């Protein structure tokens, strides 16, 4: 899906901005189409300074003196905080259709954003040019915007503190960084996966592979004196196919997304992607409809963490609570689920799609317990909400790019292990759904209603998985669904899946996870009732 974006920059921009404007106040928060991420087991510990620390100075001549001047300009209108966010991103998308690598997209994005806070007011401006006059102009604009558009003559904000490099994590080192990988090596990956898919079964009619790699260099400086830099890699491989049997067509996919270099694509992983896409597609020919209506639902381990993301994650983002528009507002310390339910949002999992070495306003990445044994413990905070709640930021201030101000976002959201054997959970259900593959989650923050889509799963009859089912939508209410989690398995898994999460017009990479989990009753859509 990502590959098509590059081709539609001009076409989609206006409608996108339009949607963003409306969504700013609309409430529904979208979780975009799934891409998977690999939770690699290789733990890396904190951090030798990397050579890219000096990147913006070397490539664009940005000096500490420049940063200081721009910060001072930004605070010149009476602001009480400012940050500068520099970003240089490069990405490559390569498409292989029916065995032919016949198109590619590349993208380069460069710029810096200036944010000014004045109490609860945010002013934001960016520049795609990194010259000092252009940056000063952006700073002046942000200062004025934070001030409600007016100048504040003579008003003097706080002085920026001297910049000092901060330590940070090193969660996504690359053994084979993408800027040292040739195109032929990338094509080799695609040929292996495409070849396996085409050769695997006579019913496969079409194959489509979309490969992406990119890296984003980031430099952050703020008026508290924090100076940080990062190199954020991201790669994904999306394998999909169309199969035909008795005149009927079905399609499905398997994909991976992770923060790593070329080394992540082992032959075993590539074969699993190819085999997974084919298996998931062919299985749909055996799918039968499921009776629609309210029923027990067992969520398979891994990507079913989408339930947490929609049912509670967005609702705990502190901006929604500070404004009291979330259904979870003013519920800290209250019991919202059973004893078995502990939910964590963690930015520190190595190579996870949602991993961040630090957040996009200089906050330290951390593991945040949201729900502990059923009791609501914390919201997800950025600087602005932490200030309002008089607590520490949870390191959750994230942004899509230098064009946007940060806001509280999830990182990797998952549920910890419970006491039950997975088989025991399935066996407890007389008639219900075992849901395996998920996409398209969405939540209405105020009412707490959420929805996500089960691309594939199985019917459960008398405690056994019987036939495959497909294409059913699930809709529920967050607090209600959490209170209906009646069994949690002992098989926690951070999904091999990572997703792109959209909120108020900004998209960021996230991860999610869940052990096998039973929700005792939830509304499942379908064509048979």
């Amino acid at each position, binding site marked *: 899906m990502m590959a098509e974006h*590059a081709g539609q*920059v*001009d076409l989609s*921009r*206006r*409608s996108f*901005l*339009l949607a963003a*404007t*409306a969504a700013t*106040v609309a*409430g529904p928060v979208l979780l975009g189409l799934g891409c998977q991420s690999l939770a690699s087991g290789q733990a890396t510990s904190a951090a030798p300074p990397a050579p890219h620390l000096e990147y913006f100075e070397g490539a664009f001549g940005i000096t500490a003196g420049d940063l200081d001047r721009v910060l001072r300009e930004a605070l010149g209108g009476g602001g009480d905080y400012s940050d500068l966010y520099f970003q240089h991103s490069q990405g490559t998308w390569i498409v292989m259709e029916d065995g032919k*690598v*016949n198109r*590619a*997209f*590349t993208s380069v*994005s460069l710029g810096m954003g200036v944010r000014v806070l004045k109490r*609860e*007011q945010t002013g*934001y401006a960016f520049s*795609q040019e990194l010259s000092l006059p252009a940056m000063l102009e952006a700073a002046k604009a942000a200062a004025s*915007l934070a001030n409600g*558009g007016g100048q504040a003559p003579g008003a003097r904000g706080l002085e920026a503190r001297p910049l000092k490099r901060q330590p940070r994590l090193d969660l996504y080192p690359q053994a084979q960084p993408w800027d040292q990988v040739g195109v*032929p090596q990338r094509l080799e990956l695609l040929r292996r996966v495409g070849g396996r898919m085409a050769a695997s079964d006579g019913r496969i009619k079409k194959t489509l592979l979309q490969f992406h790699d990119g890296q984003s260099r980031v430099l952050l400086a703020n008026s508290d004196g924090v100076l940080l830099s990062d190199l954020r890699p991201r790669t994904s491989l999306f394998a999909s196919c169309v199969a035909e049997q008795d005149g009927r*067509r*079905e*399609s499905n996919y398997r994909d991976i997304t992770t923060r790593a270099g070329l080394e992540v694509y082992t032959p075993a992983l590539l074969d699993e992607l190819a085999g997974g896409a084919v298996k998931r597609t062919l299985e749909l020919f055996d799918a039968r409809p499921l009776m*629609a*209506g*309210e029923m*027990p639902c067992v969520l398979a381990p891994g990507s079913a963490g989408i339930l947490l993301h929609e049912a509670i994650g967005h609702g705990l983002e502190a901006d929604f609570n500070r404004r*009291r*528009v*979330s*259904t979870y507002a003013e519920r800290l310390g209250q019991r919202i689920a059973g004893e078995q339910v502990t939910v964590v949002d963690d930015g520190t999992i190595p190579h996870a799609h949602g991993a961040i070495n630090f957040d996009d306003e200089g906050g330290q990445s951390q593991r945040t317990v949201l729900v502990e044994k059923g009791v609501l413990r914390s919201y997800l905070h950025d600087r602005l909400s932490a200030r309002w709640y008089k607590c520490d930021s949870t390191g959750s201030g994230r942004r899509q790019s230098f064009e946007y*101000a940060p806001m509280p976002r999830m990182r990797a959201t998952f549920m910890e292990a419970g006491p039950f054997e997975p088989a025991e959970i399935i066996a*407890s*259900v007389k008639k*219900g759904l075992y849901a395996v593959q998920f996409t398209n*989650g*969405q939540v*209405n923050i*105020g*009412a*707490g209603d*959420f929805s996500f*889509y089960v691309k594939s799963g199985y019917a459960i009859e008398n405690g056994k998985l019987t036939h495959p089912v497909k294409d*059913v*939508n*699930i*809709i*529920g209410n967050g607090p209600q669904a959490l209170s209906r989690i*009646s069994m949690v398995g002992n098989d926690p898994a951070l999904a091999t899946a990572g997703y792109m999460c959209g909120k108020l017009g900004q998209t960021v990479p996230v991860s999610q996870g869940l052990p096998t989990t*039973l929700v005792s009753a939830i*509304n499942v859509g*379908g*064509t*048979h*009732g």
Partner: protein
Amino acid sequence: MASQALEDLTRVAEQALVAAKQAGAREASANATRSRFVDVGFRDGGLEKASASIRQGLTVRLFLDGRYALHSTSDLRPEALAGFMDKAAALTRLLEPDPQRSLPEPARYARGPAPDLGLMDQSLRQSPTALWMDLGREMEGLSRAAGQGAGQLVSAQGGSYMEVSQDVLATSYGFLGSQEETGGFVVASTVLMDPGQGGKRRSGYWWRGSRRLADLGGQDRLKTLASTAAARALRQMGARPGPSGAFPVLVENQAASRLLGDLLGCLSGATLHQERSYLRGRQGQAVAAPLLSISDQPLLKEGFGSRWYDGEGVAAQPFTLIEGGVLRDFYLDTYYARMLGLKPTTGGHSNVLLTPSQPGGFGEMLAGLERGLAVTSFLGGNFNSTTGDFSYGLQGLWVEGGQVAHAVEGMNMAGNFDGLWRSLQRVGDDPFPYTKLRTPSLLFGELRLSGASLAPGGAGQ
């Protein structure tokens, strides 16, 4: 007409074509864009966030040694452009040849002078940031007043957005097109506490947009937006699932864009070529009820999708997609038309219009509904373009005897697009005017709804 910005962009595009040729491209096109925007949000009596900046970019399509790739950059420094093009060409050379790729035949290019589509308003173009700040502030105040009037106000928002954009497309066959546009939007939003429902909030929003500044302000207009937003929040109070079963479904104009968007996806060249469209090979066949006619109208005055040349530089002209329920045409650019052996149209939609089947919009259609569901928004769900199967979560209103019985949430509707569009019973005359997809309200025959529990299933613990 040529503003400084257009002149700058034209120079960038022409330089890019020269660089592409030097890098070895046989054919190339360059699209340079720039936009200035102001985005303002007030909430609960104060400014929440204001952003303003200029965004520009260049996208180049290279046709090189029979190979094709597309490259974009926001780094327009001359010294960066040369390196960008060299890297772009090097990557393109490593792909496999695709002889069907080329620029469109020169005869299909749009020819100037550009028609006046009413897309640019001088007063909006010259409007200062402060004007949008004031508009957002005023909108928030009215939105708050309307929310307070409705009772149980949790939060009120008012926002404004403006954009002035320029687009220049140049191709190596000598096509040079440019378009300059303005657009402004104002939005009201209200969140109310639902007293009967333990902490549930009901939100409503409404907005308007125009190419022209004069269409946006004015207290009466803003008051209407504020009261509409509050009324939309109010009407969701006490929402609960309706019954499960097969019922007629009315979809409000704004929400119907989801259904139309999924349908248009099945008409795109890439989807058809990948055999991921349930409408593949069905040109000339009835695929919907006879009262469905859909057309693409790029030359609509002041339309949000209006243009006189498309992404390839081809002359924009209206065409029919579905006429009297019969599938007439697809969205096909030069490449996909060739791959599918069909006549090219255009690669992507402009303004999409449906012909009303009889007078009356959402209100009249609801009043005529004996028993069924009125969908006011979709929540999640999915459409499978390969099979046409859909399953959408939704919110809306349960209707009995032409009256709203109660608000609805927590329901799904499912079926197949073949059946859905064939069951279409009425197309409203209330197209939603502020987007490219100008969908009216649509009334469908019986659809499978799942809502309130049928019977207790086998339970877990």
